[in-house]
């Protein structure tokens, strides 16, 4: 079966219509030096059976290790119904399902998603999603600079406790707009954003302050104090949150006087780890900022007969209308993953999500208690944490993680590269998917590896 819909006759007809003799002639204005005729590194085509077998072999090679790796993507139980419903043809196959006349079901799903995200974050409006947590943060930086019209500055304060990948992505996306992301250091004992580092900016013109809760170390920041510091100076606040944690923690809408923009990685809501993607980002805000919000937004309205219905709204500032002056160049959303997240949240409900969050927190406490009993392992910080934490080891982390991997355990993330000042630091995580037996196994393997010759 051919998956390319144009027949040779179609192509001939189209070329004739535009007065070009051949495909070759159509592209002849591209200089030969820029054209790649052969792709020697690309292997020849495989059929479905062959590719299925290859992919199965690769998946088996990855194995199914016992994972204590978090650091931004989290393993949660996904009820079987989530992807059974998400992969129904009505949800799965419709590309760009935004035409209101034809796509009421999809539009309603996105509307429900926005409502759930707004409710979780304590905000009044949310968009239809962005690519991932890191790009959502970058969009939030651009949005904060746009909405802070009192400030002449393009300086945004970003704590070092914000995920290093988020900081890198935001830097890449905002650098050419002359936005400066200035890093705030953290207190070495608590793992929280340092108040002294913040006070150095008192009296300076700052466009926005970012706060991640729980922060990259898993630590709970003093969000009220940070928010109040910014709000007393009319500095907008960008909150970066784990949506599951919000079932237990105070929503950003209630931090101090309330955050202005809330973003995060949506993966924990029903999306499998899947080797790193695709995931989705979310972005929510206050109603007063809604016109600076990037991305697709679905609204509820009435049709000509007065019946309720759903449609894309607030489109006038998007790039298909406003071209180069658009609010952002985001022009789509992660529709399928948002469908899964909406079904996940519907199935869990507020109580279910709270149980996931509580169980994850309990497991993480159990994990840290168990592994800090092992000689050579101690907790890095004194502060409360949500479902992951940093421990310090008495020897380099990388060889230790490799030894654990040989025992089919992913022990966590080596922080040596991003936070060399912490020494041999390991970020390790447990969610509701880990049993006491799993945690005991990790602790005993860790003990075995650490007590063996170094």
């Amino acid at each position: 079966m051919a998956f390319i819909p144009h027949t040779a006759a179609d192509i001939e007809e189209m070329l004739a219509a535009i007065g070009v003799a051949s495909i070759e002639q159509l592209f002849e204005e591209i200089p030969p030096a820029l054209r790649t005729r052969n792709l020697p590194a690309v292997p020849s085509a495989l059929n479905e059976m062959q590719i299925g077998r290859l992919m199965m072999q690769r998946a088996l090679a990855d194995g199914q290790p016992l994972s204590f790796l978090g650091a931004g993507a989290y393993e949660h139980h996904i009820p079987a119904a989530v992807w059974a419903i998400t992969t129904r043809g009505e949800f799965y196959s419709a590309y760009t399902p935004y035409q209101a006349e034809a796509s009421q079901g999809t539009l309603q799903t996105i509307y429900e998603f926005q409502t759930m995200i707004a409710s979780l974050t304590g905000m009044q409006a949310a968009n239809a999603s962005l690519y991932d947590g890191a790009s959502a943060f970058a969009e939030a930086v651009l949005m904060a600079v746009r909405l802070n019209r009192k400030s002449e500055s393009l300086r945004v304060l970003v704590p070092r406790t914000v995920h290093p990948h988020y900081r890198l992505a935001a830097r890449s996306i905002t650098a050419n707009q002359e936005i400066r992301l200035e890093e705030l250091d953290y207190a070495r004992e608590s793992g929280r954003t340092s108040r002294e580092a913040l006070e150095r900016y008192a009296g300076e013109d700052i466009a926005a302050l970012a706060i991640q809760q729980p922060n990259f170390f898993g630590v709970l920041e003093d969000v009220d104090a940070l928010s109040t510091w910014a709000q007393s100076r009319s500095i907008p606040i960008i909150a970066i949150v784990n949506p599951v944690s919000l079932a237990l923690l105070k929503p950003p809408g209630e931090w101090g006087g309330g955050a202005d923009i809330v973003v995060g990685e949506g993966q924990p809501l029903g999306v499998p780890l899947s080797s790193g993607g695709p995931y989705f980002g979310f972005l929510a805000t206050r109603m007063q900022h809604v016109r600076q919000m990037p991305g697709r937004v679905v609204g509820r309205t009435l049709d000509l007969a007065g019946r309720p219905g759903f449609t894309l709204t607030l489109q006038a500032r998007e790039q298909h209308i406003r071209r180069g002056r658009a609010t952002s160049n985001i022009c789509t959303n992660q529709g399928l993953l948002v469908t899964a997240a909406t079904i996940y949240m519907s199935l869990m409900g507020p109580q279910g999500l709270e149980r996931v969050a509580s169980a994850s927190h309990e497991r993480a406490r159990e994990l840290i208690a168990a592994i800090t009993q092992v000689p050579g392992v101690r907790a890095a910080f004194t502060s409360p944490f949500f479902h992951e934490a940093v421990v310090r080891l008495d020897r380099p982390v990388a060889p230790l993680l490799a030894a654990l991997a040989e025992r089919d355990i992913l022990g966590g993330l080596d922080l040596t590269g991003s936070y060399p000042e912490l020494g041999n630091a390991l970020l390790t995580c447990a969610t509701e998917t880990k049993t006491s037996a799993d945690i005991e196994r990790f602790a005993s393997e860790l003990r075995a590896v650490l007590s063996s010759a170094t």
Partner: protein
Amino acid sequence: MSKVPADLKYTNTHEWLRELPDGTIEIGITDHAQHALGDLVFVEVPEVGRRLSAGGSYAVVESVKAASDVYSPIAGEVTAVNSQLASAPELINQDPYGAGWIARIRPAAAATGLLAAAEYEKLLREEEPD
């Protein structure tokens, strides 16, 4: 044919200016402009105190179809903005030269290149065939 009050000055980008007795200049968009944009749903006004350059964008008017920049016809500092537009953007559609004013400016320099009503009408006749 759009309304073009004789006592105002205009720009060829469809803004109007009114000199007020205190020396400040009131600015807005013309009847032709509001008609071309259609029903406005949102107006983003500048902060009081902001310094505008002649020809620079100082406001955004948004209809259901499009969001368009509004350009300042004159350099100066914003002394007042029409706060009613926040809840009633339709004032610009209903009364573009009165209740639909957008901002008042203390001019930094004399404006150049402005059109008198008759000249602006001539421009519109060229743009509006009937």
